[in-house]
């Protein structure tokens, strides 16, 4: 069955690429075969970027793949916006992953969805509860579901080959979720995330507090899921079949979305305090989110509140991270949600300010009731978090138990790419906010690039690493992102099944901590994580850039009872 479906995808498909918008590439020679089958075409890029002669016909060494390619769009149900599922302790949710029809900016695409929704169903439950998810795989690829950030039982963590077998097409798996920590979490596949997650397989889990007044007051709560997708006028740019493309920098999308749409809009009353639950589900893009100059304070990170609320002008959110922010809309006007970055034009050697419009919040003349304005301006101290963290301060100065260096190895990349990378070494930015080298990035596949977690203490690399810890251990990991590797890049480092504190960055103590499960490691930086080891089993830790994960950037660790 699977083989037949794949055959359909790769061979028996009509041409979708024939009306490719060459205006996207004016000045570029796109001398590629646009025949009747799925073929590579150059990804969209800024036309101000010159190209090296003789390189324009290069294509990735892996074949192109696009789930549902060539199938009749009308075969698929139109996906619908996410719905909230309030689940009580012991409830069961039946959820599948399937191919769906999605409309983005007026164009229809065959994509994927959990429960036929974009994002997937928002599972809402109380802290301390347990729920069952009966999951069925109705996509044409094997998959699993990883429940990101939950300290759940190991067998339900959704890692193929480690905690479960892949869920094949037509098969089911029963996940038991438990929610020991208040906050916003998310779920996504842990097989070919670069494809499945990018095509829409993601959803949130909102864990409500059981305590009164756990957070400060707000007028409403709004989940916002940030994503991007790589599209040209012919449709989705194909993915790699045997391995991901874009292995160097990850697959940046050129169309940015909030909650799966490009024109997000919210109407609020004047003086409203809106609590936004932010999740970044993009393959590789880190966002710098600005809410039109509205006053904003960050309340919580991945797995807990901060020790104290902190006023901020923007929110830096890497793939897989979550933040809870309270935003105060005190003026009757339009507030734009934007991604405000300084991209880099390597050819010109300059920073380029870019502001990507993501959505609009319209504040009306009606006054919000109740008025929480006077309470908003105070930054709350969270004594419960401070007390929790206080138990771990005795470990802040301990020597690291593990020292990791983040680096990369490459083989068989086109020589001109290697040359260009070697030539352009004068400045490596701490963060990559955009695809500054779209052609080189696209051409690099997971078969040519090995992203490496190097254990400095043992010399072991990536999946040859299997740390052994015990429940009750407090483990310090010092991570150094080597700026002198072949291609340094920021990495959002995720640890499964446990929680950690970021105690120190570049020798600077962290003055305001929250429990996390994912943390940005900028280029050149040294970051110390203190892991609260509570959950037995065999777990993973990895970079959450989907293409880096599939290019090897993961390790395992075992926690014994």
């Amino acid at each position: 069955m699977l083989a037949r479906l794949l055959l359909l995808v790769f061979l028996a498909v009509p041409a979708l690429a024939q009306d490719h918008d060459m205006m996207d590439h004016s000045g570029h020679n796109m001398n590629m075969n646009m025949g009747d089958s799925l073929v590579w075409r150059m990804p969209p890029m800024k036309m101000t970027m010159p190209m090296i002669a003789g390189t324009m016909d290069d294509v990735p060494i892996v074949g192109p793949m696009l789930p549902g390619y060539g199938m009749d769009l009308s075969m698929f149900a139109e996906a619908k916006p996410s719905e909230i599922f309030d689940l009580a302790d012991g409830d069961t949710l039946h959820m599948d992953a399937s191919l769906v029809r999605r409309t983005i900016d007026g164009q229809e695409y065959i994509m994927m969805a959990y429960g036929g929704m974009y994002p997937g169903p928002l599972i809402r439950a109380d802290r301390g509860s347990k729920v069952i998810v009966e999951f069925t795989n109705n996509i044409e690829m094997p998959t699993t579901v990883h429940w990101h950030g939950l300290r759940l039982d190991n067998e339900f963590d959704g890692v193929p080959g480690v905690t479960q077998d892949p869920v094949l097409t037509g098969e089911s798996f029963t996940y038991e979720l438990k929610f020991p920590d208040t906050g916003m979490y998310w779920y996504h596949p842990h097989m070919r995330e670069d494809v499945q997650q990018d095509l829409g397989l993601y959803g949130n889990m909102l864990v409500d507090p059981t305590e009164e007044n756990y957070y400060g007051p707000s007028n409403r709560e709004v989940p916002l899921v940030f994503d991007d997708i790589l599209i040209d006028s012919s449709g989705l740019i194909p993915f790699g079949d045997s391995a991901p493309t874009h292995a160097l920098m990850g697959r940046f999308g050129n169309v940015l979305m909030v909650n799966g749409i490009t024109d997000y809009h919210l109407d609020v009353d004047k003086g409203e305090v809106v609590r936004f639950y932010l999740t970044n589900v993009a393959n590789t893009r880190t966002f710098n989110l600005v809410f039109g100059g509205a006053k904003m304070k960050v309340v919580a990170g991945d797995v807990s509140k901060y020790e104290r609320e902190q006023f901020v002008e923007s929110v830096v959110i890497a793939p897989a991270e979550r933040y809870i922010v309270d935003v105060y809309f005190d003026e009757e006007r339009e507030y734009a949600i934007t991604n405000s970055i300084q991209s880099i034009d390597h050819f010109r050697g300059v920073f380029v300010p870019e502001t990507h419009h993501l959505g609009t919040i319209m504040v009306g003349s009606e006054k919000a009731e109740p008025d929480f304005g006077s309470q908003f301006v105070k930054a709350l101290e969270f004594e419960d978090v401070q007390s929790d963290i206080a138990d771990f301060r005795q470990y802040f100065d301990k020597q690291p138990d593990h020292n990791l260096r983040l680096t990369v190895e490459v083989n068989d990349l086109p020589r001109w790419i290697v040359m260009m990378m070697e030539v352009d070494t004068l400045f490596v930015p701490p963060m990559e906010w955009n695809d500054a080298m779209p052609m080189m990035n696209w051409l690099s596949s997971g078969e040519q690039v090995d992203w490496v977690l190097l254990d400095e203490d043992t010399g072991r690399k990536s999946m040859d690493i299997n740390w052994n810890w015990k429940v009750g251990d407090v483990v310090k990991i010092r991570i150094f992102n080597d700026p002198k590797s072949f291609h340094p890049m920021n990495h959002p480092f995720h640890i499964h099944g446990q929680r950690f504190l970021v105690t120190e960055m570049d020798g600077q103590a962290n003055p305001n901590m929250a429990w996390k499960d994912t943390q940005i490691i900028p280029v050149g930086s040294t970051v110390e994580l203190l892991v609260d080891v509570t959950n037995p089993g065999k777990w993973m830790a990895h970079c959450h850039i989907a293409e880096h994960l599939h290019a090897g950037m993961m390790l395992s660790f075992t926690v014994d009872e």
Partner: protein
Amino acid sequence: MHRLLPSLLVVLTLSGWSSLETRSASDSPTCLIPVSGPEYYEIDLVGTRKVRGARMAKGIGEVTYASSPFGVAISATGTYVVSLNLSMENVTLDDGSSLVAWVTTPQLDQIKPLGRFSEELRVDGQTDWNKFLLVVTLEPASGDLGDIWSGPIVARGMSRSGLMHTMAGHGPFETEPCAVYGY
């Protein structure tokens, strides 16, 4: 460009680049993980050798992120917000004079004082400019610093980002006309 690429390949191959296909992390020299940093973005403060009492002056500008709940500090316009910790050595000051640190853009169109160095020849500050220069000057020990230095420059250094420059007219893009790109 067509003519350039083969000759560049020859030069690179002869220079030992023929083994570039495989780069191994384990082949790299052992690199102890730093406990502070990031050293990569440190700024060397290079003396001008022109100021009496500071002819052998040199220093370092340490660059770390300003405090941020997100780990990396970014402004609302997307620029990095960094703390600057400057230290100088080999400086003997006359009574009535002091070292002052300034931060300026590469075009010198914006200048901000970071402050006077302490007796230990250290001073801290912050900036959110993409590319910047650190300038250390000799100034009167008291009084308003003003908007721009008045004394001689003792040392200066450029942010790592300042090293990034156009490829037009260089390397593989040597034949690209610089003027087209505004250079």
